[in-house]
């Protein structure tokens, strides 16, 4: 079973996205802040096949030193820190951020996809993730 790290500060609102991913057969670990997510990602015994990342999240701990625009851009720094560890793991940005500059920043990245929450239903998102992971059944496991 493939492992997904899902980072978003609103677990309640992301519940349906998580459910759809689980229905597609993925195991989802949910973290609601960037600091904890980074710590989990760095654990030597944890291996993730894909990371789903929000951009606007509270900026505590290691991220307090960065200019995250009051947390509006915390995910940018989390992405950079993840990429310092590995460039192999696909990262899927799932965010409300509408700023063109942010999406363009990720357009130029390898192994990275950018989706807006407002453009995508949870099951569509799960289909995209399935395709990215080469498991493009796109249908939940019944």
């Amino acid at each position, binding site marked *: 079973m493939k492992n997904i790290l899902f980072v978003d*500060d609103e677990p309640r609102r992301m519940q349906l996205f998580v459910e759809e991913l689980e229905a597609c057969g993925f195991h989802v670990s949910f973290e609601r802040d960037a600091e904890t997510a980074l710590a989990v990602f760095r654990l030597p015994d944890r291996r993730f096949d894909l990371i789903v990342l929000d951009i606007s*999240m509270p900026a505590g701990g290691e991220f307090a030193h960065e200019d995250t625009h009051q947390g*509006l851009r915390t995910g940018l720094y989390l992405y950079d820190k993840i990429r310092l560890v590995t460039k192999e793991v696909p990262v899927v940005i799932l965010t409300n951020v509408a700023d*063109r500059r942010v999406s363009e920043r990720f357009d130029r990245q390898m192994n990275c996809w950018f989706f807006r929450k407002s453009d995508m239903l*949870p099951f569509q998102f799960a289909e995209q993730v399935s395709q990215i992971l080469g498991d493009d059944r796109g249908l939940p496991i019944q």
Partner: protein
Amino acid sequence: MTSDAIDTAESVLPRAMLIRDQLQRSADELLRAARQHDKQLLWLFNFAEAACRKLQVLFPTTDDDLKSGLYWMANRGTVDDIALLGAVKSASGDLRSDLSSLIDAAIREITQRLQQDRAQQLISALLASPNADKKAIASELYQLGVRTRPVRSIRNPLVDVSESRIPQGRILSSFLGLMRDSDRDVCSQVALALAEWAGRDALPELTDLLRQDCSKEGEEAFCSYLITALEHVGGEDAVEAIRAAAESGSDPVRVGAIHALQDLVLGTPVALHEGHPVFDPRDPAKPASRAHNAIVDRIQATLRRLAGDQKVPEFVREEAKEALAAISESAPAELTT
């Protein structure tokens, strides 16, 4: 907030929380329904979510809840939400400072997004309109650019080129094409608009035009707009083009170029005479870089040449001397290290 208003808010709170929960459940149901039936329900979901978020900001359960609502507002809020956020801030006298500044940031983000949309409309109109309207549209675009400059930026950097603020990069070539319009007034207003919106991509066209026109009779006014555009976009290439205009342009162009060079070094009156609310002179505490000093040295060399050249009209020499003196006065803060 008055006590009446507080009483009113407290009396509606339970009902508002109930509505918020119901809306959230409805939004979830819409998503589930969309899974099985119709993807177009996404629109309804987004509509429901927007309502939920307003209630989340008005009646948050925790500070983190408010923060999440503010993140959403910053990224997807609309013009109505600006007023709502302002009301939340003014009604919450004891709001934590990080939340208060996040409200400010959310208002700023929404405002910038709206202004970007307006800029996009104006640029599209500029490209599609008849000539008679182009001048006015370009002028509005320029004014919008001034009003919406990022805080703490006067947009005339000496070393680093300003980042383009044009919403869609692909239209820049059409935009630049207007600089060669048959109507010089249109060209001038477009140059002024580029001063506020353009970045590195516009520099080759701006520098080419200035090089071609800086000594031509009758092009003095247009060149002054070109110099303003280059000054605001900034960077070494822009400085070099302005320096060349100062050395070989017609006399009025030389004077404009001298002023621009002074402004580039000192970061002075550009924002002030435009009435921009934020004026951010160079930070004297920040040591100047080697690249900065090298550019300033070249500017000073040009100004010295002009000030001492007897073939140059006296009024140009005087302008060069004044600029040199102003730059020299700022030397302890600007040109050390």
